[in-house]
């Protein structure tokens, strides 16, 4: 049963990652290769807040979201002046720089040794989130909140403005919308919620190291939402479930472990290529990357 619960917690983490990344990729047409960096910043801030400051749950979560939002505002300020490939490059650069700092600034981040022994957070100083049952409740609540918030955002005037901008920037400018502000808002919102996933991951696994937040992870997050599809809520959710479940399915089919790790990546890659050719909106998405 613990095994099923663990999978469900990982699915919740990836649902949060993909639903919030969708706001950038599917709603604002900003393909970001830097999402794993924000995931990592959220996780590291959580680790410091829980170990160093001994903060309870909600302040830790808010701190992680706040610090990540500040970083994402900085990146947005720099990168949103750029367009298309150059924007992707700037986010890629950010990803590499953050990873290098996490990996090499050993005095502060302990580098490749990682941060072990992250304690469980306490809710209102009373209830301690403990054991796998505690985390399944916590992660389900947080992913439900994330889905709810982004559902509301997508169907709000702000969401419609983003869609408008994605489909025709010039038309939106002529309607008097400030597209730079729209993009910055989407960027900061998306990254702040990515930090929630970092929070759950750090406190649940209770050990973090930089390799969980490298470029491969950023590509993996992107793969999840591109397979599921972007532009709505169900696409990213399906994508997250797919990428987390596939390795488990391969294990049940009886694929040996040493092949399974590579095989699943090959399946992701093939799925991406085939989807991009025949169904760019993914399994259940809405946006076809038409621009």
């Amino acid at each position, binding site marked *: 049963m613990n095994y099923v619960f663990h999978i469900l917690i990982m699915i919740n983490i990836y649902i949060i990652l993909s639903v919030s990344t969708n706001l950038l990729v599917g709603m604002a047409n900003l393909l970001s290769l830097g999402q794993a960096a924000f995931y990592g910043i959220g996780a590291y801030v959580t680790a410091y807040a829980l170990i160093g400051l001994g903060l309870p749950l909600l302040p830790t979560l808010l701190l992680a979201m706040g610090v990540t939002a500040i970083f994402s505002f900085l990146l947005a300020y720099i990168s949103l002046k750029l367009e298309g490939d150059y924007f992707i*490059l700037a986010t890629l650069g950010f990803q590499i720089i953050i990873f290098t700092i996490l990996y090499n600034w050993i005095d502060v981040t302990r580098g490749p040794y990682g941060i072990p022994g992250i304690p469980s957070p306490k809710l209102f100083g009373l209830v301690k989130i403990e054991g796998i049952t505690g985390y399944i409740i916590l992660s389900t609540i947080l992913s439900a909140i994330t889905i709810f918030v982004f559902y509301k955002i997508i169907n709000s005037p702000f969401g419609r403005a983003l869609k408008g901008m994605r489909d025709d920037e010039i038309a939106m400018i002529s309607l008097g919308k400030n597209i730079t502000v729209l993009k910055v808002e989407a960027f900061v919102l998306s990254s702040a919620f990515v930090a929630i996933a970092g929070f759950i991951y750090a406190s649940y696994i209770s050990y973090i190291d930089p390799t969980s937040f490298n470029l491969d992870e950023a590509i993996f997050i992107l793969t999840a939402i591109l397979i599921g599809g972007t532009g709505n809520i169900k696409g990213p959710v399906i994508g997250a479930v797919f990428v987390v479940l596939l390795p488990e399915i391969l294990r049940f089919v009886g694929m040996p472990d040493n092949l399974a790790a590579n*095989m699943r*990546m090959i399946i992701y890659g093939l799925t991406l290529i085939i989807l*991009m050719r025949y169904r760019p909106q993914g399994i259940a998405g809405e946006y076809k990357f038409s621009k």
Partner: protein
Amino acid sequence: MFIQFLINGLITGSIYALVSLGFALVYNTTRIFHIAYAILYMIAPYFLMTFLIKLQISPILSILIAISLTIIVSLATELFVYAPLVKKKSSPNVLMISSIGVMIIAINLVALCYGNETKIINPSLSDSYKIGNIIITYNQIIQFITSSVFIGLFMVFLKFSKFGIMTRAMRDDTELCKVFSMNVPGFRLVLFAISGLFAAIGGILTAWDFGMDPYVGMPMLLNAIVALIIGGIGKFQAPVIGGLVLGVLQALSVLVFSANWKDAIAFSVLVLFLLFRPQGFIGEKRRLV
């Protein structure tokens, strides 16, 4: 010390220049953000290892076979992945995502066949020459001469041959090339072949010295892209200048900080260039906004 690092930087930079030139050849003409280019650099030394060590074929022949196979992989990427998408008029993002897909598949196929660990092609230590205080290895000399020769030849062909004129025409206006009845899909194959050639040579030269694992492609691709941007997009001399500058900069950053910070420094330079001099050293001014 300083001069030693400078020379090491120039030699590494010459390989960056060659690999970056291959990337630029595709990017400047087709506007594809060719991430799968990383795997050509990685896969060439694996082909070489298969023929040289497993099948015991003579070195020269093995190198030629390895390079040809890499070119075939490059052509296959264009034929089976990019060309159909271009025909469908897919957006640049779709092409880039498919390219990521190709990269993921190839890296994991190689990892499946050869394993994740670092492989060595040439186990012996390279001879070195001492000039004053400066030590240069035999491999470094080969690296510098080979990449310089190929870059030089390419520049001559770019300037004086029909191929060069067509390449520059593609860079300036692909639609107009079609109007003048140029066979654009066919010529793209030529470009992909040459870019595969450059990646293969860069990959083999580096792997001969340091060995390779399935993940060497991405860091090199990132260096090639940084070299291209700081040189300037649009001109073919740019990646060469950018590559040499980046090589020297990284070597000096090793001298000042430590080797661990190389990537962060390269990308900090990239971000500074994107912000303050997006046209790079010699690129044409263009609006990025």
